[in-house]
């Protein structure tokens, strides 16, 4: 990647770059327009929304709508306000991301830095979970949740999502690139497994952890089938499930302007995380999957 700007120019088009920019801007429009449109709708009154076509610039109801959504209570989902939904979703996304990282880093550490009977068996047990997404075991998993009394609990929403092969495999791959001499030097310097973990493995994995955090935060925030299965009560809904409930009973009374505001709230946090942590995220994503 370095020095390519210079070397690259020779191979780049000598024609004006405007064609490229035009195509890219068209692409950006496709990508961003649906979100922008929803934002515009979130600043209009219900009457305006019900009379398409909508205007292209934000309207004057921004404050009213957002105030009502944040402090008014949303009628359609049993009077739950956006705060509760955001709180629930944040709890899910954060615990899934943090829990997954902790669990995966520990098991990858065991598999890479120790030798013990059945090591490879454990590795395969973890690896095979790649092939068992929740979508293919919906009913029996639901039954387990019921039996364990985990319906409508944060534990039920997060714990089953915390074990996954991908994060473990990523950490394993990364740990195997840590030179053996480093571990030897640390052992000669008196570091046991825990000290080596905290003094070396964690600091050296910082970038990986950051990247994985972004990816897993998004994963947790955008969960759909799982929260749909394990929540019945409205005050345990994630914001996405709540939205789906708001629009699925759509009729003349649907508070579309509040739906739009809620949608913006459902989009904003993960987009902010991805954009702000972009550098790690992109690096982590492209490296993880390859």
């Amino acid at each position: 990647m370095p020095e390519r700007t210079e070397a690259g120019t020779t191979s780049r088009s000598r024609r004006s770059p405007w064609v490229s920019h035009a195509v890219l801007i068209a692409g950006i429009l496709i990508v961003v327009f649906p979100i922008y449109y929803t934002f515009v709708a979130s600043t209009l009154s219900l009457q305006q929304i019900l009379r398409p076509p909508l205007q292209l610039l934000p309207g004057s109801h921004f404050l009213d709508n957002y105030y009502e959504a944040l402090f008014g209570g949303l009628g359609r989902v049993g009077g739950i306000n956006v705060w509760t939904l955001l709180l629930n979703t944040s709890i899910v996304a954060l615990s899934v991301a943090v829990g997954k990282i902790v669990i995966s880093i520990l098991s990858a550490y065991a598999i890479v830095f120790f030798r013990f009977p059945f090591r490879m068996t454990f590795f395969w047990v973890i690896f095979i979970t790649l092939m068992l997404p929740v979508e293919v075991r919906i009913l029996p998993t639901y039954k387990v949740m019921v039996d364990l009394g985990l319906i409508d609990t944060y534990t039920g929403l997060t714990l089953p999502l915390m074990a996954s092969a991908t994060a473990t495999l990523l950490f394993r791959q990364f740990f195997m690139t840590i030179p053996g001499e480093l571990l030897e030097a640390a052992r000669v310097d008196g570091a046991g497994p825990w000290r080596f973990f905290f003094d070396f493995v964690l600091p050296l994995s910082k970038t990986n952890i950051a990247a994985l955090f972004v990816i897993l935060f998004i994963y947790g925030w955008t969960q759909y089938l799982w929260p749909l299965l394990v929540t019945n009560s409205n005050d345990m809904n994630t914001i996405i499930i709540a939205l789906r409930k708001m629009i699925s009973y759509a009729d003349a009374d649907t508070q579309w302007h509040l739906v739009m505001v809620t949608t913006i709230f459902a989009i904003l946090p993960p987009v902010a995380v991805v954009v702000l942590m972009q550098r790690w995220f992109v690096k982590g994503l492209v490296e993880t999957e390859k």
Partner: protein
Amino acid sequence: MATVALKTVRKVYAGGMEAVKGIDLTVPDGALCVLVGPSGCGKSTLLRMIAGLEEISSGTIEIDGRVVNALEPAERDIAMVFQNYALYPHMSVYDNMAYGLRNRGTPKPEIERKVREAARMLELGSLLDRRPRQLSGGQRQRVAMGRAIVRDPKVFLFDEPLSNLDAKLRGQMRVEIRKLQRDLGVTSIYVTHDQLEAMTLADVLVVMNSGRIEQVGAPLDVYEEPATTFVASFIGAPPMNLLTPDHLSAVGAVLEGLLPADAVTVGIRPEDLGTVEAKSAEAGSAGLITFDVTIDVLEPVGAESYLYARVQDASVVVRLPGRAAVPETGKLKVAAPVDKLHFFDTHGKRVDPVPVAARRLG
């Protein structure tokens, strides 16, 4: 400070591969012992067993009279310098050196004092805040040394520490290591595959081959009286010429009365071969053997010249002083003093030459 004693130490890997086949060795207090041998000879494995990084299959290792077989590396009171330095990439130079002391609960002011002291000795004072990746190869090497020194251990272990440096720097660091080791007087074990490094550094030179010790001794003793053909060809560059008596007889060498009973190989160091005029002066009363070689190439390198030649199907190297006045092709009569010949038996073991008195009789 301590002696290190190995007693019938063996290493057998899970697959049955025997990397170290029963080593007995005592390194005296304060000595620098160099383990040298080709790659795969078990020298690194042996060093790592002394460090506690490899389990010992059988035998015992004692440091300062204490059997350390079951001790963790950190409990053996050793410090190690690694081939790739193994500097901690996320720590500053200071922290790299302080890490081991902190783990032992050394009080902060003492850590500070020891690190500053080591940094002064190694001229690292201005680099203490840098990260390893901001250092040159030689500086990294010094930090690795510093990390070992601050620990004030009973034994230093060096695992090919200079192999990643360029030739010039390697020479400099070699001198520095030697000097530092003398000054500190710490018992040291040093692994290398470079015979020159081994010769110049060692108090005790240990030549290893396929998991066994071939010879132990002072470097010049080993050079002058190699115990086996392996040692003869491994120590010294270019290596000793090894020829059969038949080869030599065929090109005019007269060996009658010189050859011990069991000898099947005759060894001659390249520098012990030369033109007849030069070697007659050197040999004095001992006498010469002379024979013809067929010249292949003459390589002048400045202070000396190497003549690559053949005796029938065997190749021979002759080291000539300065600008050699010899033809570049054709035949040349070369000579070697009789008392500089080495003899080996069918097992490659050294055989004593025929005593001078007996020679006359023959």
